[in-house]
C-alpha cells in the first residue's frame, strides 16, 4: 500500500518543522472598526518575540488587486480579527499566553456591515483611498470609486436596455440574497517562514505561489528572486488558500527572531481570514410572448469585507455569470465590489458564480411561470449554441448547454412529471488572460520529472498532470515524478484557480513533451490564453474556455412544518475528455455536496460585525447522512474533444435546482440558505395569495 493519504504519511504545510522553530500566535482586534491608539507589549517575557506596529511601519502594503492591507493594522482595525500584533515563542502555549500580556488601547468607530448600506450616503468609509495593485492578479481594468466604499465597478452595456424592455411582452423582477460562507478546509491555513541570509523561504499551503511571492517582495522591498515559496499538498483549499494569508506575519516574525516561525490558524481564526462574498443581486428579465429573451438588467452588491483581496475579480465574474448562458440582445449589468467592516471575502469555489446563478436561474423559472411555459423549454429555446454572441460580444464556441439540459431532464424524469422538480443550467468562465508553463526533464533511470506550479489541494491535479505526461511520453504514470511546487525551480504559472490547471497545463505539457523529444533531455512548454473585458462596457472576451453544467433536483415538502427533503439530485457537467475518471467524479460529487450545504444550511452569521457561529458546532457542513437518497452525476464526453475544467462547475447549479423544485410547488424563496422556517413562510404567502390557508 503506497498511497500516503491512506497510510497517513502525507505531509501538509502544517507538518513542516525545523530545528529551533518558533510557533506564532496573532493578536486580533475585538472591534469591527476601531482606531488603534496604543499597543503595549512590555509585559511579554523576553523569550517571546513580539511583532508590533513599530516593526512593520516601514514595510510595503499589499493586496492582490487593491493594495489596501498592511502586515498589521497600522492606524485602524477594520474588522473583528484584523491582526494588531503577533508573537512567536518556543511553544504554541507560550505564544498564546503572551497574547494575554499585550495591552491594546482602541477607540471604537462606527462600522458598516452590509454592502447595500455601505454605498448609502454618509456610510462610514472603510478605506480613504483605493490604490490599484501592481500584482499580476490585478489583471483587468479596476475601477475604484474614490470617496466611496466601492473598490471596483464592473459594467456590461450590450444593445439598448430601454428598447429591449419595450420589446418585452412579459417582465419579471426580483432581488436575491446569498450569505457569507466558510470554506472550511479540513487543514487550516499553515505556513513556515525562515530567512537564510537575505533570502526568504516560505513553506505554505498556497494555490498562488507566484502571486504570493510578488506581494511578499513588495512588502519587504526585495526582488522576487530573493524569495522562495514552496507549496506542499493541502488538506483542502476551495479558494481560501490564495494570495497572502499567514505568510507575511510568519516572515516578519522569522526575520525578527532570526529563526524559523510556524503559523497554524485555529478553526475560529479561519472565519477571520477569508470567507465567501455575501451578495445582493437584483434581476429584471424581459421576454416576448413566445419565450424569446429580449432584455436583462442586473445589479450586484458584492460585499468584499474590510480588504478587497480578489473581490473586484469576483464582482466582475458575478456580473457576467448573472447574465447566464443565454442569447439576450439587450443586457445592462452593474456589479459593485464594496468594502464593509466584515472579515475579508475572497475566492470561493465558483468565484461569484454561485451567487449569480442562484439569482439568474431562479428568475428564469419566475419568467417561465408568468409565460405559462415549461422551464426546460424556455431554457432550450434561449440557451447559447456555437456561433451565438454572448453579452460580452464574444462568439461562443465548444458549448454544450443543450446536451447538459437533455441529460438532467432525462435523469430527473422531467417528461413524466414536473411537480417537486427543478432545473438549472450554468456557464462559468475560466481565468482569462492567463499563462501556464511547465518543464519536463528526462532522468537517467528512464523516469521523468515535471516542474510545474500547479498546486495540489485534493483536486487531484498532480495525478492528472502526471497521467497526461505519462501518456504523451509513453511510460507508466509511476515513471513521472512531480515534486512539490518550489518557485526556485518551477516556471511561471498564473495560479491554481478557476479549474484551469488540467486544461491550461495540459496544453503546455503537450508543447513541453514535443520540445523534450526534439532536444532529448529537457523540454519547456507554455500555454497562454488572451482576452479580458473592458470594465466600463463589459465587451471583450470573458473566457477562452467555458465550464458548462446543469443540475436537477426533486424535493418533498412537509407543508405543516416547512421541512423538506431533497429526494434526488443530479448534475451533468461537460467534461469533453476525462483524464482521470475517479478524480473527475470526486470533483463533481464534492462540488454538488458543497452546493447542498450552501443550499440547506451554510451561512456565517454576524452581530454588529462579530461572527456568531465561528465553529463547526454552530456552523454545519454536510456529513454522509446529508446525501440525498438518489445522488448522481454525469461527465459528458465527446470523441476528440478538449479536456474541460470541472473543479467547481457542479456547485453553482445546486441551489437553484432545489429552489426551483420548491417553486414548482408554489414555494418562492429568494434568500439562501433555504431553511424550514423560510419554506413555511413561503407556504403561508402562497396560501394567502390563494385566499387564506384552511
Amino acid at each position, binding site marked *: *500500500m503506497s498511497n500516503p493519504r491512506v497510510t497517513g504519511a502525507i505531509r501538509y504545510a502544517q507538518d513542516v518543522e525545523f530545528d529551533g522553530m518558533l510557533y506564532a500566535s496573532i493578536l486580533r482586534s475585538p472591534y469591527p472598526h476601531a482606531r488603534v491608539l496604543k499597543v503595549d507589549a512590555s509585559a511579554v517575557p523576553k523569550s517571546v518575540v513580539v511583532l508590533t506596529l513599530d516593526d512593520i511601519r516601514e514595510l510595503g502594503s499589499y493586496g492582490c488587486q487593491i493594495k489596501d492591507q498592511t502586515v498589521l493594522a497600522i492606524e485602524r482595525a477594520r474588522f473583528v480579527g484584523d491582526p494588531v500584533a503577533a508573537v512567536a515563542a518556543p511553544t504554541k502555549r507560550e505564544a498564546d499566553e503572551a497574547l494575554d500580556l499585550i495591552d491594546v488601547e482602541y477607540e471604537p468607530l462606527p462600522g458598516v456591515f452590509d454592502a447595500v448600506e455601505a454605498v448609502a450616503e454618509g456610510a462610514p468609509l472603510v478605506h480613504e483611498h483605493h490604490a490599484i495593485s501592481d500584482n499580476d492578479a490585478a489583471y483587468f481594468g479596476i475601477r475604484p470609486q474614490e470617496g466611496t466604499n466601492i473598490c471596483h465597478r464592473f459594467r456590461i452595456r450590450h444593445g439598448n436596455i430601454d428598447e429591449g424592455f419595450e420589446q418585452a411582452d412579459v417582465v419579471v423582477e426580483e432581488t436575491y440574497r446569498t450569505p457569507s460562507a466558510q470554506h472550511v478546509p479540513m487543514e487550516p491555513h499553515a505556513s513556515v517562514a525562515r530567512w537564510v541570509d537575505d533570502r526568504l523561504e516560505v513553506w505554505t499551503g498556497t494555490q498562488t505561489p507566484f502571486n504570493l511571492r510578488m506581494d511578499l517582495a513588495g512588502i519587504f522591498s526585495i526582488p522576487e528572486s530573493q524569495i522562495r515559496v514552496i507549496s506542499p499538498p493541502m488538506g483542502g483549499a476551495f479558494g481560501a488558500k490564495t494570495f497572502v494569508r499567514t505568510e507575511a506575519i510568519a516572515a516578519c516574525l522569522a526575520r525578527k527572531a532570526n529563526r524559523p516561525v510556524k503559523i497554524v490558524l485555529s478553526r475560529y481564526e479561519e472565519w477571520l481570514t477569508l470567507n465567501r462574498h455575501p451578495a445582493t443581486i437584483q434581476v429584471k428579465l424581459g421576454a416576448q410572448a413566445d419565450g424569446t429573451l429580449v432584455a436583462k438588467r442586473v445589479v450586484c452588491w458584492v460585499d468584499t469585507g474590510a480588504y478587497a483581496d480578489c473581490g473586484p475579480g469576483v464582482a466582475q465574474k458575478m456580473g457576467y455569470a448573472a447574465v447566464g448562458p443565454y442569447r439576450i440582445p439587450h443586457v445592462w449589468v452593474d456589479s459593485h465590489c464594496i468594502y464593509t467592516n466584515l472579515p475579508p471575502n475572497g475566492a470561493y469555489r465558483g468565484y461569484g458564480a454561485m451567487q449569480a446563478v442562484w439569482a439568474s436561474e431562479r428568475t428564469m423559472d419566475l419568467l417561465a411561470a408568468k409565460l405559462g411555459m415549461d422551464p426546460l423549454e424556455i431554457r432550450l429555446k434561449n440557451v447559447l449554441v456555437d456561433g451565438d454572441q454572448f453579452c460580452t460580444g464574444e462568439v461562443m464556441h465548444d458549448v454544450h448547454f443543450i446536451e447538459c439540459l437533455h441529460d438532467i431532464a432525462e435523469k430527473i424524469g422531467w417528461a413524466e412529471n414536473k411537480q417537486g422538480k427543478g432545473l438549472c443550467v450554468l456557464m462559468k468562465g475560466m481565468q482569462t488572460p492567463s499563462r501556464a508553463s511547465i518543464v519536463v526533464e528526462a532522468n537517467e533511470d528512464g523516469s521523468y520529472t515535471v516542474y510545474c506550479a500547479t498546486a495540489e489541494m485534493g483536486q487531484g491535479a498532480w495525478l492528472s498532470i502526471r497521467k497526461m505526461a505519462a501518456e504523451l511520453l509513453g511510460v507508466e504514470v509511476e515513471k513521472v515524478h512531480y515534486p512539490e511546487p518550489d518557485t526556485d525551480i518551477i516556471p511561471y504559472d498564473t495560479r491554481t484557480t478557476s479549474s484551469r490547471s488540467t486544461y491550461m497545463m495540459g496544453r503546455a505539457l503537450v508543447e513541453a513533451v514535443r520540445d523534450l523529444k526534439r532536444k532529448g533531455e529537457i523540454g519547456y512548454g507554455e500555454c497562454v490564453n488572451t482576452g479580458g473585458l473592458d470594465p466600463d462596457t463589459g465587451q471583450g472576451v470573458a473566457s477562452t474556455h467555458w465550464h458548462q453544467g446543469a443540475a436537477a433536483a426533486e424535493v418533498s415538502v412537509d407543508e405543516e412544518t416547512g421541512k423538506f427533503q431533497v429526494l434526488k439530485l443530479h448534475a451533468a457537467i461537460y467534461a469533453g475528455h476525462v483524464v482521470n475518471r475517479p478524480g473527475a467524479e470526486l470533483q463533481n460529487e464534492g462540488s454538488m455536496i458543497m452546493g447542498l450545504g450552501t443550499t440547506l444550511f451554510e451561512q456565517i452569521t454576524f452581530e454588529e460585525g462579530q461572527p456568531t457561529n465561528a465553529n463547526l458546532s454552530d456552523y454545519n457542513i454536510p456529513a*454522509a447522512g446529508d*446525501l440525498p437518497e438518489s445522488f448522481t452525476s454525469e461527465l459528458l464526453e465527446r470523441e476528440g474533444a478538449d479536456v474541460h475544467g470541472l473543479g467547481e462547475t457542479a456547485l453553482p447549479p445546486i441551489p437553484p435546482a432545489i429552489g426551483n423544485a420548491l417553486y414548482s410547488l408554489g414555494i418562492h424563496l429568494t434568500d439562501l440558505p433555504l431553511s424550514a422556517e423560510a419554506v413555511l413562510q413561503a407556504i403561508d404567502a402562497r396560501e394567502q395569495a390563494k385566499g387564506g390557508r384552511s
Partner: protein
Amino acid sequence: MNIHFKLNGTPTEVEAEADEMLLEVLRRELKLRSVRATCGIGICGACTVLVNGELISSCIFLAPLAEGCEITTVEGLGGDHPVQHAFEEEHAFQCGYCTPGMILTTKNFLEENPAPSDEEIKVALGGNLCRCGCYVKIIRAVKRAAREEHVQ
C-alpha cells in the same frame, strides 16, 4: 508529567502537561502526523484514534487519561489493512486529511457491524466530516472493506 501507554503495540512513555489533549502529545512528542486537528471540539473526526478499541476524538481527550491504555492510529494499521485497501481501491479521498479518521471509524464500525446497510454506514460516519465531499466513494469503500474482511 510522564504518561505511559501502548502506542500501536509499542510501550511508550511521553512527557505532557496535565491539561494537554492527547492530539497535541501524539503530534508534538510522537510525530504522528495522521492525527490531525480540524474543529478542536470533537465534532469532525479528523483527530480520531482508538483508545482501548473505542473511537476517541483526541482533540478533546486529556492526555493523562491515556495512562495505561492501548492507542491505535492509522500508522498502526501498517498499510495493508483491508479498510486501507478498500479506501484506495474505491478512490475514497481527495485531500486525504480526514482519511485516517475515516479509516479508523470504519475499522471499528465493521467490527461491530460486519454487513452494514448504506443507512447504517451514513450514521456510523456521522462524526467524520469530509469537506472534499467524498462520501459516495467512502460509503462504497466501507462496503468493499466489509466484503473483503468477510472473505478473510
